[in-house]
């Protein structure tokens, strides 16, 4: 049981526990905090898989951007006094059956597929490769994603504005 295995199990436990808090808690801020630690855990998984640049990107964009956006959304869509923050779950039995079925299919498929055994070396830094690939092979997706972000930004600012109707 090498330290890599121990680290993986620790990070996986943190991620799964936080995801559990996120799904099963009734307080919406607890959901957001569970999501925060789930994102942390996923960033840790990326580091274990040798994707250092992607782990920092995950922290910057997901925690520093999307989670802040979600928290603002939560705080701006509740009444401040007389907090109505309960998020009850409905129809939990059919949902449990469906999700249990999906989980069973996915796990059975992962177990049964003969994944090819590749010999992999130690992880190497990826920033330079990612940068080069962005400018050579993946230039067109890069440009399209930039335009998509611009459209999303303008659209979100327009939809979310407060107009007196």
């Amino acid at each position: 049981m090498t330290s890599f295995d121990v680290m993986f199990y620790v990070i996986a436990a943190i991620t799964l526990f936080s995801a559990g808090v996120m799904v099963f808690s009734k307080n919406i801020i607890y959901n957001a905090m569970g999501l925060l630690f789930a994102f942390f855990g996923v960033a840790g998984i990326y580091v274990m898989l040798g994707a250092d640049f992607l782990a920092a990107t995950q922290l910057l964009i997901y925690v520093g951007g999307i989670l802040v956006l979600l928290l603002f959304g939560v705080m701006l869509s509740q009444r401040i006094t007389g907090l109505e923050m309960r998020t009850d779950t409905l129809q939990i039995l059919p949902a449990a059956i469906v999700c249990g079925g999906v989980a069973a299919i996915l796990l059975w498929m992962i177990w049964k597929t003969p994944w090819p055994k590749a010999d992999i070396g130690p992880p190497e830094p990826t920033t330079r490769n990612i940068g080069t690939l962005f400018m050579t092979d993946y230039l067109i997706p890069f440009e399209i994603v930039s335009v998509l972000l611009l459209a999303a930004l303008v659209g979100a600012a327009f939809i979310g504005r407060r107009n007196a109707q």
Partner: protein
Amino acid sequence: MMQVGLTHFLVLGAILFVLGLLAVITKRNAVTVLMGVELIINAANINFIAFARYLDKDIDGQMFGVFVIVVAAAGAAVALAIVLNIYQRMRSVNLDEADSLAG
């Protein structure tokens, strides 16, 4: 417990996916449903990066992971703008009440 390999990461991704699916199906607050969607996207991203590490000599999986993160951010921004708009009209973000296409 055996040596941590590709299957361990895939199983983690699958369990996160199912948890996110549970949140999307059962929650009725719009922002919580969004959180579930983000969890699903992260689970799929773990799959991409795990395959890039264990099955591939290049880092194409990580490139796709970067694009997934960016597109998820754009999607979350637009979705939250829509949620805020719904709140301004209906004074509630209960998805069960947002069921009319009129107005």
